[in-house]
């Protein structure tokens, strides 16, 4: 018998406006001792709701039925009180967004020790000792327990959250999106930690994520969730090789993989709201393999092979995930984020650069504390960008990648002359814009456009789509009359893939999906007919299912309109799949630069290599030897001497601590335009 069994779980929420939302619909799940199970699905599939139900933490507006058996004992039957004594002792949880999981006014150590005292597993001195052990276990110095949550970095906080979950030595750990919003390297560190824990502490782990490759790389079994139900579960290998449910297959297909040059496709539509009963299969409207029966009758969860699946196709082989491209595309009837396949195309003719940056340096002055002024300490500067050179040509996509805080956004803003304190030359079509007046800059803004990371924030919630897209026209007084402007707006919407435009013109952002919002933002950038588009993390906030669509769109734009595009991202696989050139940034410097093929296939800088090694791959059998860097990006106030990467570099030598390497063509590189800044290559 499994350690944790969830049986036919239903959850309903009372809605404020009346009625009920059937959030979880008969979910069953098993977790064995020492097992590592992934629970995957798009955002809004009720993954978190399921976790909360297992912990008995649902709000009063919820109604629950079904059973949650731990060691054969039904937890739900005991009610809140029954749960209270069990929580944390047997089952602990690492919440999604552990940033806010800590009480900001209590030391981390105290919060870790708190459940021990409560459940009596350790008290007083023993609790303190155990806290220290736990912190060490997750790779945080024990002394950090004295510190407050805000003094921790994101990665540390995530580790601390894990340490806290382990406080009472639970048998089951629920980890809800433990790596989302973390950098690849930190993500790899955390995942490693979790895997090691199952091995060493004998923990059973249920890991919730929307990142299928991550599951594929770490878990033994995975369950795919859709609309409050498990649609398929089984060993990860089987899911990858022979998915039984089209949703599984499409999820794999939507995740770009670094070395597979296969097509990437987004899943059209979005999950149902579940506030009214679903007839038939919930996935039917988005399914490329749906047929008449699917609309009429809900499929049952049946055993197929080593796993289970709920599909009327009943385990027909629907092809392996990697082979989507070779098959006819998914049904396009309801498609908005229409899947487009990418014609492989690399080298463009070396034409005149659109924008050329030489030696860009940006300093931020730090906040000067009063005591520091009193002590006459000099103002401190933070060099966010240090001598960056970059070129983007017409019809080219250049990707700027790097960990959080390395200066990517700063570089972009400096390109647009949107921040003070930048030096270096910026040539836009040969004209140096670094000294332009404000008036002249306004004209420049027509040619270079920026889109922002967060599509939920970049649109004014009070603006209709048409207002948003029209705004640049008004600001720059182009487009003439109202009717003409409307035409331009519609045209831009079409170019951004929002067809027919009439359907969108009058909508407010909250009536749009994330992908659609990002498209609207792109449309607003396109409406003035720019030549260069800078896209700052265009997909990082989006669901996997729609990411591909946006990236395809960008790719399409550069092909059709000869647009130069600078994509800023921390996701190497995206860059690898879509960019012509890749520039890898570390602590304000570009450490490696070259064509995408060169950088991905022949990485020279140890940092690039490490980054590439930790990118999760969708294929569970492809588990490369990962080179996880220790620590985090250093404080930009204290840039290490010599090569700034040397403290984390696995191959650093003594000279690396002394000499600051310049970008140069690495020895033995085939391409003339491949450069790396490492003394050892």
């Amino acid at each position, binding site marked *: 018998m499994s350690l944790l069994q969830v049986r036919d779980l239903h959850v309903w929420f009372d809605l404020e406006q009346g009625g009920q939302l059937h959030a979880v619909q008969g979910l069953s799940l098993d977790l064995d001792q020492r097992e590592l199970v992934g629970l995957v699905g798009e955002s809004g599939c009720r993954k978190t709701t399921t976790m909360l139900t297992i*912990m008995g*933490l649902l709000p009063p507006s919820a109604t629950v039925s079904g059973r949650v058996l731990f060691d054969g004992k039904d937890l739900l039957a005991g009610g809140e009180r029954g*749960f*209270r*004594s*069990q*929580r*944390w*002792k047997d089952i*602990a*949880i690492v*919440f999604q*967004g552990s940033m*806010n*999981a*800590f*009480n*900001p*006014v*209590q030391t981390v150590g105290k*919060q870790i020790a*708190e*459940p021990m005292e*409560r*459940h009596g597993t350790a008290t007083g001195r023993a609790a303190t000792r155990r806290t220290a052990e736990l912190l060490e276990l997750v790779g945080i110095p024990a002394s950090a327990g004295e510190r*407050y949550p*805000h*003094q921790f970095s994101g990665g540390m906080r995530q580790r601390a959250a894990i340490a*806290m979950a382990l406080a009472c030595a639970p048998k089951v750990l629920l980890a809800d999106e433990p790596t989302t919003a973390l950098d690849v390297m930190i993500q790899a560190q955390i995942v490693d930690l979790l895997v090691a824990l199952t091995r060493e502490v004998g923990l059973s782990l249920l890991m919730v994520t929307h990142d299928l490759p991550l599951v594929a790389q770490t878990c033994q079994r995975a369950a795919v969730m859709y609309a409050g139900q498990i649609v398929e579960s089984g060993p990860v290998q089987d899911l990858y090789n022979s998915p039984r449910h089209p949703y599984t297959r499409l999820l794999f297909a939507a995740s770009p993989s670094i070395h597979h040059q296969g097509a990437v496709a987004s899943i059209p539509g979005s999950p149902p709201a579940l506030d009214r009963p679903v007839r038939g299969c919930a996935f039917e409207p988005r399914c490329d393999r749906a047929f008449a029966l699917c609309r009429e009758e809900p499929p049952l969860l049946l055993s197929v092979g080593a796993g289970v699946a709920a599909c009327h196709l009943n385990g027909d082989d629907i092809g392996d995930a990697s082979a989507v491209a070779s098959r006819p595309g998914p049904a396009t009837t309801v498609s908005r984020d229409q899947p487009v396949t990418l014609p492989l195309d690399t080298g463009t003719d070396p034409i005149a650069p659109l924008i050329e940056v030489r030696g860009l340096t940006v300093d931020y002055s730090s906040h000067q*504390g*009063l*005591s*520091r002024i*009193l002590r006459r300490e000099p103002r401190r500067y933070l060099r966010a960008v240090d001598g960056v050179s970059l070129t983007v040509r017409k019809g080219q996509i250049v990707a700027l990648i790097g960990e959080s805080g390395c200066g990517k956004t700063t570089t972009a803003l400096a390109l647009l002359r949107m921040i003070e304190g930048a030096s270096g030359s910026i040539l836009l079509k040969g004209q140096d814009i670094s000294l332009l007046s404000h008036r002249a800059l306004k004209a420049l803004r027509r040619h270079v456009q920026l889109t922002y990371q967060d599509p939920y924030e970049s649109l004014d919630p009070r603006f209709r789509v048409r207002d948003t897209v029209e705004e640049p026209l008004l600001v720059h007084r182009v487009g003439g009359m109202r009717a003409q402007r409307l035409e331009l707006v519609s045209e831009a919407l079409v170019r951004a893939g929002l067809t027919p435009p009439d359907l969108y013109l009058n909508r407010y952002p909250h009536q749009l999906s994330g992908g659609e919002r990002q498209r609207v933002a792109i449309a607003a950038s396109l409406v003035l007919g720019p030549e260069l588009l800078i896209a700052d993390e265009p997909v990082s906030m989006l669901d996997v299912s729609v990411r591909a669509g946006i990236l395809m769109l960008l790719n399409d734009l550069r092909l059709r309109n000869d647009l130069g595009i600078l994509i800023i991202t921390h996701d190497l696989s995206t860059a690898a799949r879509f960019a012509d050139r890749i520039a890898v940034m570390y602590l304000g410097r570009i450490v490696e630069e070259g064509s995408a093929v060169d950088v991905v296939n022949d990485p020279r800088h140890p940092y690039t290599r490490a980054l590439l090694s930790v990118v999760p791959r969708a294929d569970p059998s492809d588990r490369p030897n990962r080179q996880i860097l220790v620590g985090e990006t250093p404080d930009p106030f204290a840039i290490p001497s010599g090569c700034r990467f040397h403290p984390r570099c696995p191959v650093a030598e003594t000279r690396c601590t002394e000499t600051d390497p310049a970008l140069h063509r690495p020895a033995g590189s085939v391409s003339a335009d491949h450069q790396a800044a490492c003394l050892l290559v």
Partner: protein
Amino acid sequence: MGRGSGDYIVKRVAFGLVTVFVAVTVNFVLFRALPGTAVSNLSQVPRASPELKAALEKEFGLDRPKWQQYGLYLDQLVHGNLGISYDNQRPVSENLTGAVRNTVPMAALGLVVAIALGILVGTLSAWRRGTRLEHLSSAITVTLFSVPAQWVGLILLIVFAGVLPSGGIRSPFLIGATSWGRLTDEFRHMVLPSLTLALTLYGGYALVVRSALLETLGEDYMLTARAKGLPPRTILRTHALRNAMLPTITMIALSAGRIVTGYILVETVFSWPGVGRAIYQAVLQRDYPMLQGAFLLLTVTVVLCNLAADVAYARLDPRVGG
């Protein structure tokens, strides 16, 4: 806390000083914009002569140019001298001390009750949200919050006529009473004004505590605390209240202005010779030194309260200044 919070406190103190200086200056100008002077008031005596007027003007320094008066005033202030009241020729500090001594016990009693009641009611109504208890207490709180203080005072006067003294700080006619007798007498006099203050002020505090606590209860770490299996009371005490106190402290400190308003009204209703009445009287008398002194006192008090709140905040919230 470390250097960050030290910086924070230094900054707060600097702001406070700037504020006090601005207040001193603005007040000086403002009071002199009042039509009429103390001299014309004080010379309303039989056969007052131009000489009396001149004598008074010279005495008060009102014959000098305004900027010189300002300079003198600043000079005095720096030396800790608040000047001499025009009204009774006693040092302003002495008059203020008397008034403060009258006001503080009554006000403190009212305020302490108000804050205690506010925290209690606020906590209860946030914690027990949606229950009948909460609806009832909210209704009472909002009602009392909406009623003008002077009106509550008048109503209490009617209700307690004959039971409790109707005005004044003490019965001045207790001859040869024991000190215990004097104490109970003073306490009896304090009850109604303090009650009025407490009733009209607590609502505000309760509402602040309530919304602060409600906000805290919605934070993710509350869910963490529940997940840890802590009983609700423990969660409330160890996690919710401390966080909810942060905004509350600031609010309480900043409510000083409102409290002073309450005092003036309550002191008028209950014939209480405190700071509020003194200010009111000083306005009527154009007693600039007294007005300046009283305003300085109030300003410094509020600034100090805010500073105390900031310090408390910095102590309670490790994020501050970091």
